[in-house]
C-alpha cells in the first residue's frame, strides 16, 4: 500500500478511535514520537491499550523534563497497559499510571523488555507463538504454558502482539516511506513498525526517493502507512532539543 504524506499530526491520526491499541517506543527524548502522542492526548482518545517499554517521564540525571511528551503523560487515556516498567515508586514517587493500576482503572500485563520486543516481532512476522527461556520461576510465568524442550531447558510459551496503530519516530524518510534512524533513537521503532495495522511515522526530514542509501534503510516503506515531518520547532526537533538542554543547564547553574 502507498505511503501517504500528511501535513499535520491531527490529520495523521484523525481515524484513531476510542478503544484502539497503540504501540509506541520511548527512551526519554530519544526515539519518542512526541508530536503524535501530543496529538492523541489533545484528541482525548479514551480506553487505549498501550504497548510500550517504559512508563516514565524523560529525565536528565535526576531532573525530570516535564515538557517532553511520553506515554507517562497519557495515563488517564489508558485502559490496558502492556509494559516492562509501569511505575515510579522505586524512585520515591507514585506515578499516575501506577495509581490507576492500583485503583483497578488500568489493567497491567507485565513483561520483560526483551520478551516485549520479541512478542511484537512475532506479531509482525506471522509467528503464532514462541518458547522463551526468560521468566522461568518468576511471576511472569503466571498463566503461561511451561514446557521442557529437547535441550533440557524449560521455556514459556509467549504469544505475538500486534496493535491497531503504531506511532514511529525516525530520523529521515523518503517519499516511499523508507526510514532511517539516528543512534539509540532506533530502539523498538523498527520492530513496532512491522506489527501495527496503521503505522504513522514522524520524522525530522522527508527526502526525495533515491536519496537514502538502499543498503542502509532500516524500515522499508512497505511497513509505513503515513508520514509527517516534525516542524522546525516541533517537539523533539533539533531546535527543541537544544532548547531543552540550554534550559536544563541554566536551571543547573541557578540551583
Amino acid at each position, binding site marked *: 500500500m502507498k505511503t501517504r504524506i500528511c501535513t499535520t499530526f491531527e490529520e495523521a491520526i484523525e481515524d484513531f478511535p476510542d478503544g484502539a491499541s497503540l504501540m509506541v517506543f520511548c527512551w526519554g527524548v*530519544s526515539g519518542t514520537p512526541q508530536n503524535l502522542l501530543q496529538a492523541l492526548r489533545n484528541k482525548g482518545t479514551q480506553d487505549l491499550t498501550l504497548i510500550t517499554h517504559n512508563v516514565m517521564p524523560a529525565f536528565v540525571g535526576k531532573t525530570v523534563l516535564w515538557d517532553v511528551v511520553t506515554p507517562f503523560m497519557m495515563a488517564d487515556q489508558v485502559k490496558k497497559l502492556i509494559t516492562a516498567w509501569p511505575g515510579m515508586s522505586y524512585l520515591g514517587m507514585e506515578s499516575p499510571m501506577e495509581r490507576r493500576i492500583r485503583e483497578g482503572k488500568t489493567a497491567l500485563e507485565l513483561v520483560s523488555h526483551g520478551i516485549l520486543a520479541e512478542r511484537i516481532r512475532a506479531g509482525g512476522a506471522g509467528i503464532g507463538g514462541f518458547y522463551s527461556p526468560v521468566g522461568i520461576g518468576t511471576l511472569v510465568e503466571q498463566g503461561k504454558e511451561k514446557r521442557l524442550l529437547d535441550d533440557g531447558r524449560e521455556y514459556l510459551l509467549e504469544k505475538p502482539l500486534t496493535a491497531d496503530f503504531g506511532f514511529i519516530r525516525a530520523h529521515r524518510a523518503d517519499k516511499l516511506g523508507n526510514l532511517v534512524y539516528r543512534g539509540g533513537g532506533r530502539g523498538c521503532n523498527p520492530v513496532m513498525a512491522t506489527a501495527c495495522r496503521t503505522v504513522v511515522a514522524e520524522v525530522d526530514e522527508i527526502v526525495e526517493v533515491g536519496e537514502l542509501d538502499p543498503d542502509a534503510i532500516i524500515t522499508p516503506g512497505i511497513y509505513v502507512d503515513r508520514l509527517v515531518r516534525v516542524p522546525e520547532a516541533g517537539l523533539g526537533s533539533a531546535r527543541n532539543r537544544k532548547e531543552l538542554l540550554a534550559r536544563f543547564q541554566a536551571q543547573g547553574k541557578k540551583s
Partner: protein
Amino acid sequence: MKPRLLPEQVAARAALELKDGDYVNLGVGIPNLCASHLPAGIQVAFHAEHGVLGYGPLLPESEWGRADFDYVDAGLRFFRPRPGMAFCDMGQSFDMIRGRHLDATILGAVEVSGAGDLANWTFGVPESGGIGGSMDLAVGAKRVIIAMEHVTKQGKPKIVRHCKYPLTAKACVDLIVSDLAVIEVGADGLLLKEVAPGWTAEEVQALTEPRLVLDSNLKEIQV
C-alpha cells in the same frame, strides 16, 4: 565499624572479571561504575538494551551543552560517540542477550540466594517499578556477575537462603562481588574466594545466611 570496600572498589574488583574484547552490559548502581574502573590495557564494548553497542564514556555534566539525546545509555545518561560503536534495534539487542552472545553482565541485587537465584527488580509490588531488561540479562548473558553491598542499609544479609522478593531469574548468578567478599556460586553452593582487607571468613559468614565453603586458596581482595 570496620571499613568495607567503597562502591568504586567493588566496581574495580568486579571489573577484574572482564577480558579484553568482551561485550558487557552493566546494570544501574555499582555495576555502572565498572566502566570507569576497567583494568589497564583492556577494551570492553558496553551494550545498552535499547540497541547500542560499544558506546564511549559518559559525558561529565560540564559537557552537557554538547550532549545528544540520541546518544544515551540505558539509564538515559549521555555518552560520547566512540569509533566502532554500532546501533541496532531493540529486538536485535535482546537477541544478543537471550542468544548468549554477551560475555558478561554485571548487575545489582536486592537478594541473591545460595542457589544463585536473583531478585533485583522490585522492592515491592510489580507496578511500583519494572522488570526492564533484567530478566533477559540474567538468563541470557554468558556470565552473570553481581556487584553490590553485602548487607542492606539495616544490616541484614542480602545473600539469603531463599529470596523473599519477586525473582528475576533462578540459579543464574555466577559470581558475587560485594563490599566484603568475592563469592562464586557453584554446584556445591557458595565458595568464598576472597575477603575484604581486614575481614575474616567468619565475619563474612556472620553477615551471610547460607553456609559459605572456604576456598582452599582464600585471599584478600586486591583493589
